């Protein structure tokens, strides 16, 4: 009896240790960024253009750039991903073609981000002549997030009870009416979870935007989808490795803003999601 109790304590202890080991790096990163970057935060830092070869002034263009890229890529990838997921889980029969498509989606998720960057360069920038632009960058980022959105949407659709569909059919609804009125409304919170996960991914990626949209330095803010933008992750990379003499708190401040921006956008999306949940 006591032996069993001791074993149990050891078992739970190991599980707890593993859990703490997961939390530790996250905590360490946040503490590091906040302590080293906090002093850089100011209204000037957040809302003005860089000065002195980006060694002083603000990072507003990079903040705006990242925000615009997130918005543009999600508004491209969310509808397409959701539509593909609905087709795959509600209409597609289980045949060879469907299996190949599934395999493709899984593989798409496994492709490294720099390959997406090269793909975006050759397809959007060069072949379709969108140039190095917000459009090219957002489309590249969007394709990168498609697997995440498709997978989470399918999970969300699968979580809607089969009985809702049967009730809807039994009341004379067609397949499309059933999806529209008895499946999608109840899957929306889950679908938004996919979108939330994508926000962080899109905001943080450097490689896909490297060749497709990101600018080293721009004296002016963008005003159309055909313009280049600065972006936070790329700016962080430049400030850390390409420009000598950038103050340390400036670099960590940029990282802090990136993390903060993702957090704010996640909170906003979560708010929207809980509003959908409450609607029931």
């Amino acid at each position, binding site marked *: 009896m006591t032996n069993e109790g001791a074993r149990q304590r050891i078992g739970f202890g190991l599980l707890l240790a593993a859990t703490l080991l997961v939390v530790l790096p996250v905590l360490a990163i946040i503490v590091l960024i906040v302590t080293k970057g906090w002093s850089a935060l100011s209204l000037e830092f957040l809302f003005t253009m860089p000065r002195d070869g980006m060694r002083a002034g603000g990072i507003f263009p990079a903040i705006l750039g990242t925000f615009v890229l997130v918005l543009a890529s999600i508004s491209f990838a969310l509808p397409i991903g959701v539509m593909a997921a609905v087709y795959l889980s509600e209409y597609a029969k*289980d045949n060879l073609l469907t299996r190949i498509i599934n395999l493709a989606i899984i593989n798409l998720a496994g492709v490294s981000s720099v390959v997406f960057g090269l793909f975006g360069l050759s397809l959007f920038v060069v072949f379709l002549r969108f140039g190095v632009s917000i459009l090219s960058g957002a489309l590249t980022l969007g394709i990168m997030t498609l697997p995440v959105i498709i997978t989470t949407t399918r999970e969300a659709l699968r979580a809607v*009870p089969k*009985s*809702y569909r049967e*009730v809807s*059919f039994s*009341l004379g609804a067609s397949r499309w*009416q059933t999806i529209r009125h008895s499946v999608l409304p109840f899957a929306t919170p889950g679908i938004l979870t996919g979108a939330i996960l994508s926000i962080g991914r899109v905001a943080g990626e450097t490689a896909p935007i490297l060749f497709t949209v990101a600018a080293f330095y721009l004296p002016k803010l963008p005003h159309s989808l055909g313009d280049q933008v600065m972006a936070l992750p790329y700016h962080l990379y430049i400030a850390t490795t390409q420009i000598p003499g950038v103050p340390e708190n400036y670099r960590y401040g940029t990282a802090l803003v990136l993390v903060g921006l993702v957090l704010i956008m996640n909170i906003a999306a979560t708010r929207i999601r809980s509003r959908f949940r409450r609607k029931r």
Partner: protein
Amino acid sequence: MNNQICKAKIEVKNLTIHFGKVRALHDLSLDVRANEILSVIGPANSGKTSFLRSLNRLNDFEPHIRISGSVRLDGLDIRTDIEAEDLRKRVGMIFALPIPLPRSIYDNITYGPRLAGLRDRAALDRIVEDSLKAAFLWDEVKDRLRSSAQKLSGGQQQRLCIARTLALRPEVILFDEPCSGLDPISTAKVEESMLELRKDQTIVLVTNNTKQAARVGTRTAFFLMGELVEIDATEKIFTAPRDPRTNDYIVGRFG
């Protein structure tokens, strides 16, 4: 009972259903007469539910299903002469567990009519009131039609589901063990509404509760391992069945 003069509402001929390699129903032929309550009894896996779901083609969504034989509604083949959506508007279904959609009571009941294209507010209001009254639920919910249907009790939910089905004014209603999750009082209310509905509708009731079949069934069919053992007037089945297996089941020797 003047069963002889009643005409067949549904004619089932040589219906056989396979799910993959499993045979759920074998060469079933029977008629459902207009304005009767046909009770279908039998042990688990006897094909009762497969039979019921083939009457509104809800089996169609099962993968690897094979169906042969025919089902006719008022003489029309339900697979070739009627669209599945139209068939399901004429042949409603109540499921074993009450499944209110996560919407308001009002929206649950108007779900079918709205999707069928009815937009007129006054007409929808009238349908809601009539359907709830026919399901004996109106007095309990008339002041909170806009509140969530999922907040109702189990018995109320099942009567809501009946009202929701009635909203489409179906000619036939299929009940799939509608009282399996209900307490005796709620069961009595559901049975009461079934007997009331019989005046205008034809009812097929699948039940695990032989007493329920005896209480409400005009006729009763006994299924065993995917085959129809016998079908007859309810009092005949319960007092003098022709087949000894029917008697064994009714007195509780198996099943």
